[in-house]
């Protein structure tokens, strides 16, 4: 076997993608131990050496983004329909699904379009497929949230959208703070 692939300590659990995830791993964890194999038969592991694929973080991010976009879709529908009866509330709840689907597709198509445009201008970040587009997706989502906050009116109907937007922007700000922290840490390590 190729010995480079036989490193049991390069487990994916210790490789988060986001700055916040990296800081959390730094603060909470000792080196991750090799998991105990659940059966008694002989078993060897060979893990590929790759950058961040933290399963928990991946699904946390997917769930968080889903909830944020669902809440924004629901909030937008409340603004449009202004439900007052049971039927209109039901319509708002049911309508959230197609609005959510349209929203995630608009965001990903827009991100992909921007990436294609940037490539036309010669901007090609050295990242694997999907990673740069993903950042553009998150940037667009953040921009949408900023717009919501800027245009937020008063009243209960706007409350859901603006509080969701504020929540997402808080997550973005905390991640940015974690990134700054990591940069200072690297700088300090480089200087000592």
């Amino acid at each position: 076997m190729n010995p480079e692939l036989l490193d049991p300590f390069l487990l994916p659990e210790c490789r988060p993608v986001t700055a916040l995830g990296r800081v959390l791993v730094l603060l909470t964890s000792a080196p991750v131990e090799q998991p105990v194999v659940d059966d008694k038969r002989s078993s060897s592991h060979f893990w590929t050496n790759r950058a961040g694929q933290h399963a928990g973080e991946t699904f946390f991010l997917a769930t968080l983004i889903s909830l944020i976009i669902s809440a924004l879709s629901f909030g937008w529908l409340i603004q449009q329909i202004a439900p007052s009866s049971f039927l209109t509330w039901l319509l708002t709840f049911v309508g959230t699904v197609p609005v959510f689907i349209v929203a995630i597709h608009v965001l990903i198509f827009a991100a992909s379009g921007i990436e294609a445009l940037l490539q036309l201008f010669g901007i090609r970040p050295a990242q694997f497929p999907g990673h740069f587009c993903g950042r553009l997706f998150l940037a667009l989502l953040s921009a949408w949230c900023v717009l919501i906050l800027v245009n937020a009116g008063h009243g209960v109907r706007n409350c859901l959208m603006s509080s969701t937007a504020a929540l997402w922007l808080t997550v973005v700000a905390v991640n940015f703070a974690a990134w700054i922290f990591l940069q200072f840490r690297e700088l300090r390590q480089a200087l000592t």
Partner: protein
Amino acid sequence: MADRSPASILHRFGAYGDLTLKFQAWGAKVCPPYLEPLYISFYTALAFLLGGPVRQGLISNLKALFPEQGPITLFLKAYQVIWNFAFTVADGTRSRQGESVIDWEIDGYEHFEAMAKAEQGAILLTAHMGNYDVAAPLFAENFQRRLNAVRAPERHAETQEWMERELAAQAKDHYTVLYNKSDRLLGLQLVQALSRGEIVAIQGDRVLFDVAPLSLEVSPSGDPDQRCLFTLPKGPFVLALTTGVPIHPVFILRTGWRRYRIVALPPFYCQAESRDREAAIEKAARHWVDDILLPLIRTHWSQWFVLETAFAPVK
């Protein structure tokens, strides 16, 4: 000239159409890993609800495996198979795009290593489980021996053309993909490869197109009273009998997010004890189906990606 009628274009958007696969490959190019579960959930539900024949095929296979379970449980189980299949396809596409995304673990390492060290050729018999398109080049790289992966051609010419291009892009020195087309030359090619000490990887759980079939009466649920007819390819056993090489059962199971387990089981032979070659083939095939394949499928039913009806009623 290419057929551009609306029916033809719609056909290309079907479950086996090239446009569906191209759209999925484009999706993997633009979608970041942390958004994959979001889009996969949506498209899996859409494909499951719209793909009637696939859904029916899965439910029929699961009903043969679990006859005591009700229609709602079987429906949900069929969805779980499609869900697993979607993640497997996404992982495969990402790997083909050059990103090393999969973590592997091996169960039965000693059998795996024995196969790698042997100078004799070997048949690697597997099933439609996990990411065999991604695993095969990895095996070849680690064995440092040529691995010939036999694939059934795609149902549509456009899909076949596209798939050949995609797989050619991941071609390695020790890895060749051979298509089981109707030109009858494949058997000869495989015998030559095995004689040279190479490995031949074949899927032994489904018969498509012009492949010599072998039908066996089996009990998928393990209950001897519930018998069905299961058709599998005869080729791997004929090859093993002709060349005398061992058959290594190897399965690839998805165990989590971007994580797969390779299950390598002890090898077996297809040897004629008398002049009756057919009896030897049937004995080996029966061992493969009854002792290896069906117990594994019963345990890992959510990973068995045969999307057509596999078990027929016994007449």
